[in-house]
């Protein structure tokens, strides 16, 4: 039921809001990408994404984004 709405962050669409459902990486979790936080993708290229979490903006590698599962927030 939930899985249908889950996508990896790397497939997130620009300028849409997502909620992090599962981030398995402690380092990025500690940076504020914790489960339940809302995230917005501003830019992407084939290596990185620029994301907004709260007031923070990060460059995040696509490889890392593949492992972070998110759900679109309507």
């Amino acid at each position: 039921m939930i899985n249908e709405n889950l996508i990896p962050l790397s497939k997130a669409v620009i300028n849409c809001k997502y909620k992090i459902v599962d981030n398995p990486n402690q380092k990025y979790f500690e940076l504020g990408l914790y489960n339940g936080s809302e995230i917005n993708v501003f830019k992407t290229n084939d290596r990185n994404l620029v994301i907004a979490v709260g007031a923070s903006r990060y460059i995040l590698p696509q490889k890392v984004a593949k492992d972070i599962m998110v759900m679109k927030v309507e």
Partner: protein
Amino acid sequence: MNVAKKNKIIALTGNPNSGKTTLFNALTGTNQRIGNWPGVTVEKKTGFLNTVKSISNQQVEIVDLPGIYSLTSYSIDEEIARSFIINETPDLIINIVDVTNLERNLYLTTQLLQLRKPMIVCLNMMDLAEKMGTKIDLKLFEGFLGCPVVPISALKKAGIEEIKHHIENVELPDCLIDTKNKSCYVSDVKIPYDEFIVKEIDALIPDINGIAIKLSLDPFWFALKMLENDPFVIKLVNDFTELIPNRQTRDILLEKAEQAINRLHRHTKMQVGILIADGRYSYIKGICREILKKQQTDKITISDKIDKVLLHPFVGIPFFMIVIYLKFMFSITLSGPFIDFIDIFFGGLFIDGFSVLLTNINLPEWLIIFLADGIGGGITTVMTFIPPIFFIFLVLSFLEESGYMARVAFIMDKFMHWLGLSGKSIIPMVVGFGCTVPAIMATRTLENKRDRLMTIMLVPFISCGAKIPVYVMFAMLFFPEKAGLVIFLLYLTGFFLAIITGQIIKRLAFKGEPSEFVMELPAYHLPTFNGVFLHTWQRLKGFISRAGKTILIVIILLTMINAVPIRTNPYTGENDTILTYVGKAITPVFIPMGIEKDNWQATVSLVVGLFAKEAIVGSFEALYITEIDTFDGDWSISEVYVEAKDTFLEDMGVALQSIIYPFKSIDDLAEEYENDMLINQKRQFKNIHQVIAYLLFILIYAPCVAAIAVAYKEAGRKLATVQLVYLTILAWIVATIYYNIAVFTALSIIWFCIAGIAFAGLLVMFDKIKIDISSEIKPNSIAFPTEKNMEE
């Protein structure tokens, strides 16, 4: 009885870019470098509290630490910060929290609170947060954190007195209560972790209690870190043979922790580190809900709108290239009129005027020449290089203050990855435009050892500020119409050679993939006039002081050494000094790149340049002067000033025109840029290809001793030696190949072959050299706890 106690030590810690160094400057009255990008501070800096009142006969030492997001360290700069907080047991921790980004900043705060050390929390940028409508219930906040909370604006120096009050109040070990506010400095806050975690910690504490207390660490925190499988804590247990002499007992303890981790994983189906972090964030969210009278909302900011344009794939790289080009164009073109003014006015003052003065007091001619032309000329030379350096530092400071630097990492990541590096490596390289030493230090922010070492290898290809005087001197003299363009092309050549080197070393010495990087993008700030100029002035002051001393010392030493003959040349009958002797002995090595046999001064200058690149200019000043006419006309300061002013105004008109019409010739700018020394220098270089080859050699060859020393400290003896050998031989190869292509003769084929063999030798060196890139290195400044220093 007044007894001097040991210094009180105060640690400033917080997230990167939260304003720690700004607060450090406010507390200590110093002007440490700040910038609007994460990673400006890569080592701990100390200063003393700037107060007229002595605190209990103690000096208060303030330590500014590199920024960290948590007490789990991933890079060397983070390790330095964490190591200090944990090992050095400061008397007070000041945790600087960027209140505009409260949740993320409080993550570190919750970890620090659990260390159970005296601490205050400073809410920085309160003014900005209030403008954004954020209101905080401070009393409630203090209650939640269990330690004093001080609202401040480090930039505006608001709240500094209150921090000083707390620094004065905190004492160890008898008084941990803020007498004014009756609040406690050592928090007893309990973060409501998952019950399974608490149970496992309670089970571990009896086993680790002794070791934690011996290390002045809180047992709960220590146990928590063991469950996180933190390598730092695991290492402590493994290495502390004094506390747990029995290897088997240590293994049992580690096994217990491992079993606890496995049990937690089975119960919760989550990684324990994530579970603990989740507990902290749940607690933080709860606090924020209670204390924020108006919640912080996510909205599209002006920075986001700017980034939409500047981070666009078709705009990003061209914009970056334009920024770099404009930096040189402005620096060289705009500095031209100032150079002329300084040359005419101060040259008139320090050389001609000084010469007249010395003549009037009847000093011997040799002394007049030494003082007026040597020292006076040296001072004038140093001063003429201030304008281009100033403009370059100005642009660099503007970039750093604006927040653009961090964006460059994103823009250049693809390119850097192709080079074998991560995008984050571009930041040390941009810092390298100023000086190679801080650029090498800036590699500490790179988490992967391979990326660090590779970046250290490539940083010297970015010409530092000290090379600018050399480039300007040659470019203005030999390419007056296109001086700016020539200097820009030199920088581009350095960049191009960095690419080639990157391609080579990633295949031979640094095999493997560059690491992925995460980087915070700070909000753009319109740089303040004061901030940019202060930052520029600090760098310029450093340059003037260093270059002034170096150039003057070189001029004096070389003039003196060159005045003492050691033998008479049997063939020419000329008196040889030690410099001419050594210079002539080495010069044949440089003949393939166009240095002629009698141009030994150029060779000596290269050797001198090993000590400091700007010293090359001083060496030229001392060695190319062959005949000096002492000034014997009527000298008037007002005439000199009028001439300098008129020239300045005329040149400024031309310079502004050339900025508006960039392709127009600016030859008027450089026509004054000639003197005896430069005319002689011009004579010794017979054609422009000799000059270009010589400049290429200067661009590439070994960095100065300070940079070599830092490379040695940061990357080890092997890499520093490889770098020195590689750069010097590569410089010779490139200069030789260029020169022989430009003036092709039959002999050129032999030089091409020798250059080819030398290049092959370099490839073999990289292939055979075994540089350890597997484990992280420890710079000397990191103090890991050992049994010895724990006893101390």
